[in-house]
């Protein structure tokens, strides 16, 4: 998974591209490169983060160019493997996002024809393939011919020395055009375009676009086609970090508003009738979205009496259960490969499909029958925070509509201020317990079990502390053996049906000397007395407590990671949206 940017216009292309790539760093950041057409081809490639080393690339001349920020899939991150890749003549430059599955066979074929490969990537084959098809004038025809030979997923940008155009092609990887006055942009998502233009064109799978100063033309299967111009309402300010030290903290603090806007953005009319009373629901998602799906399962099964199955996208694709009823997929980016594959499978079963996503015009919105949007705005930090809360907002409203009596909507009226309230908490004593730990346990019951899983995931991904989420009752079936004074436990113990059993679980853990961080309702004396650190959250409806608790766990992970000096926004080995299997 990578990010690509292309530009044709009147501005210095390298500068536009370097700026744009920085905004796409969340898609990958192990190496980057830029090529400009001036009209001779100039190429700069470099291992490392563009935010640290991008200024040199910005010096390339020319007003036509393409660029790439990489997330290694084939070949280690290095200057040589960084994009753009060139053909044998050094005249054709290609950047690519996705995976070419038949690259090995194509490489053998092209090598037999005398092409010389310089890198270990799957992308270089595209450059040589285009070279093989190129007659010296018709670049679009050459790219089209080359694409017809490729299997796998790709979003490509191609330029050739001396030409005034950039050719873009997409199949199963995201690509969007930005339309300005006498300039055209292409990028993996809208963030690099913001600040230059609000008019965008989303390309469909199989589309090929030709960009030049005069404008843009889209072709599908060789025929010219019309694609509508859409307006994006995200402005560049919302994409920026503002004055926050990390995107993650910025996004955590946006959550009261995100929850309110998302919850109120869904109305009776948002949900077609056939989704109101399903026989059963299958939710498919990955990562944090999967945890949101688990919350929905608990909520919907107990309150609406509708069976809900929550499945991991990566498993679902290969081990598909018998399907009936609605299939709902949850993906922040709308591009998660496993989730998209699951969606396609569900369609093959003729199930009505519903997508929950944050990104307008993303692939998932075009594949599913119906889409509900989170109103989280762009999420840049790799660790999901506001998108998780926005997913819960959508799912809670969905459950409310299915339940039909408005109980959840009424209970959640004060949720935004409760989330704001926990942002004031001083978590320093809890951070002191987590910081030196090598292992952490998160335990909860019922609705709080998925929240424990999500809390542990946040801690793992940004602080690199090994954290496990458990249903509190399961601890006795094994993990209890690991408890000691070196394994702190974060216990979620809000008032409710399981409160007293949670209390006795905590006492048992305490008896094994494990330091306990208890999160419960403000004023809970009993809990305060038995835990080492008590984190109070406002006493309110269970759903509000759940939201407030998940925000506390995000903050705990964030503060711990900062205390440990981690790169919070770009944790090692992780990328924002997982667009490959």
């Amino acid at each position, binding site marked *: 998974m990578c990010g690509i940017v292309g530009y044709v216009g009147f501005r210095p292309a390298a500068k536009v591209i370097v700026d744009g790539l920085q905004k796409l760093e969340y898609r990958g950041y192990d190496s980057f490169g830029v090529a400009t057409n001036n009209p001779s081809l100039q190429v700069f490639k470099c291992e490392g983060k563009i935010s640290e080393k991008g200024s040199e690339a910005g010096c390339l001349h020319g007003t036509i160019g393409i660029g790439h920020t990489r997330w290694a899939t084939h070949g280690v991150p290095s200057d040589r493997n960084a994009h753009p890749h060139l053909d044998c003549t050094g005249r054709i430059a290609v950047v690519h996002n996705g995976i070419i599955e038949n690259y090995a066979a194509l490489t053998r074929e092209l090598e037999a024809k005398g092409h010389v490969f310089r890198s270990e990537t799957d992308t270089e084959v595209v450059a040589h393939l285009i070279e093989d098809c190129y007659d010296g004038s018709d670049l679009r025809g050459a790219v089209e011919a080359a694409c017809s030979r490729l299997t796998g997923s790709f979003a490509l940008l191609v330029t050739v020395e001396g030409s005034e155009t950039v050719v873009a092609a997409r199949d199963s990887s995201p690509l969007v055009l930005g339309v300005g006055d006498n300039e055209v942009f292409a990028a993996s998502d809208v963030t690099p375009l913001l600040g230059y233009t609000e008019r965008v064109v989303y390309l469909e799978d199989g589309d090929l676009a030709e960009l030049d100063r005069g404008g843009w033309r889209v072709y599908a299967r060789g025929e010219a086609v019309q694609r509508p111009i859409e307006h994006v309402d995200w402005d560049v300010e919302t994409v*920026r970090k503002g*004055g926050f030290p990390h995107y993650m903290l*910025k996004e955590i603090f946006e959550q009261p508003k995100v929850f309110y806007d998302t919850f109120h953005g869904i109305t009776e009319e948002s949900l077609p009738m056939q989704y109101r009373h399903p026989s059963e629901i299958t939710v498919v998602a990955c990562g944090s979205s999967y945890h949101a799906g688990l919350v929905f399962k608990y909520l919907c099964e107990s309150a609406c009496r509708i069976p809900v199955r929550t499945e991991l996208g990566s498993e679902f694709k290969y081990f598909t259960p018998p399907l009936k009823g609605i299939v709902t997929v949850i993906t922040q980016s709308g591009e998660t490969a496993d989730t998209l594959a699951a969606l396609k499978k569900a369609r093959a079963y003729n199930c009505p499909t519903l997508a929950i996503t944050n990104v307008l015009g993303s692939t998932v919105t075009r594949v599913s029958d119906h889409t509900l949007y989170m109103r989280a705005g762009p999420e840049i930090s790799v660790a999901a925070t506001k998108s998780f809360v926005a997913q819960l907002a959508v799912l809670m409203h969905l459950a409310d509509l299915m339940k039909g009596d408005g109980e959840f909507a009424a209970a959640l009226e004060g949720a*935004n201020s409760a989330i*704001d309230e926990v942002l004031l908490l001083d978590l320093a004593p809890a951070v002191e317990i987590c910081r030196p730990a090598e292992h952490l346990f998160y335990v909860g019951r019922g609705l709080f079990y998925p929240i424990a899983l999500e809390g542990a995931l946040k801690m793992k991904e940004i602080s690199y502390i090994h954290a496990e989420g458990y249903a509190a009752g399961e601890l006795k079936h094994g993990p209890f053996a690991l408890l000691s004074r070196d394994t702190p436990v974060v216990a979620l113990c809000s008032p409710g049906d399981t409160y007293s059993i949670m209390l006795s679980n905590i006492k048992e853990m305490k008896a094994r000397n494990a330091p306990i961080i208890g999160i419960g309702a403000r004023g809970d004396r009993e809990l305060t007395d038995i835990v080492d650190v008590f984190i109070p959250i406002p006493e309110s409806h269970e759903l509000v407590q759940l939201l407030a608790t998940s925000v506390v766990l995000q903050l705990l992970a964030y503060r711990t990671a900062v205390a440990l000096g981690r790169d919070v926004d770009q944790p090692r080995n992780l990328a924002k949206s997982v667009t490959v299997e």
Partner: protein
Amino acid sequence: MQAVILAAGEGTRLRPLTRSRPKALVPVANTPILKYVIDALLANGIRDIIVVVGYRKEHVIRYLNENHLPVRTVVQENQLGTGHALRCAEPFLKDRFLLLAGDNYIDRESIARIKGERNAVLVTDHPNPTNFGVVVTRGGFVSEIKEKPDTPTGYIVSTGIYALDRSFFRYTVGQEVPDALQAMIQDSARVVPVRAVDWQDAVNPWELLEMNARLLPQIEARRAGTISRSSKLYGLIRIGKGTEIGPNTYIHGPVAIGDDCTIGPNCVIMPETSIGSRVTIDPLSYVANSLVMDDVVIGSHSRIIDAVVGEACRLQDHTATWTTGAVLEREGQFQKAAFGAVLGDRVSSAPFTILKNCIIGNNVTIEAGNTTVTGVVPDGAVVI
């Protein structure tokens, strides 16, 4: 021209309203004080603005981001006084700059008067000079600034707005800004006093009501949302988007109402009232001369007059305020003031509560109905 706005201090005398925000972020006429300061600078073409944040910095930064205010922020990690706060901004300052407090209102005309000066202090008359720095002038220049004197020698006080240049940093080490200025004057620097047109400060929480009343006439009239045809609206009124005004509701401006509120039916909102966003006012309630913040719920048959109501308070039906002029003891000081009530954030009251000239802390729960609450109630208390 650059400007530095100090917004790092809590503003403790405004407690309990500063628990979740610094004083600079307290809304008056539905706009944080800090926003008035930034707007006055922008209106004067001053675009290079540095805001020093500290106490609840995330909230300030979030507000600046949400409102797309084109400023830079600098963090003062520990609140070590105004001189230190200014020094946090020093790396960004080139030559001349304005120094302002983020928690005092200032109008654009005053900025226009001082922005051309090299060394100047903006001054104004104040009836209670003992809370401020009293400015003594001689021969058209400032000869002395006496901070919070017990026996003031005049009524001209410093507004805390200065025109300065980088040479001022020679005096700021370990000093508060007024003391540094005093040192600079003793060093025979010439500092010009410039008269402010409209400068306002709310030292005590109930003084916000006066500031609210004075700033409400500046709001821009707007009627977004859904307004029942049988409601009656008079005067200057601003209603935000998504707000519903129910039938037979009477609103007499100047009144500002935020977004997504539900008011009425059969409510009365009298002049000099501002109501934040997502506020619910149930039927048959009466609100006058009050400052109601975001996410508040006021139950039916309530009567809220001369009150500051903090964020997310939940007042049940038949809650009433009672304006008297009793003497209050706050942090060891006795003060006499006439107002109905000041409620911190997230106060909840049972039905038929009477709030009599009281200051109620954050997260206070008034559990028993039919109670009359007076005096000062600390944060987190439960009234039974």
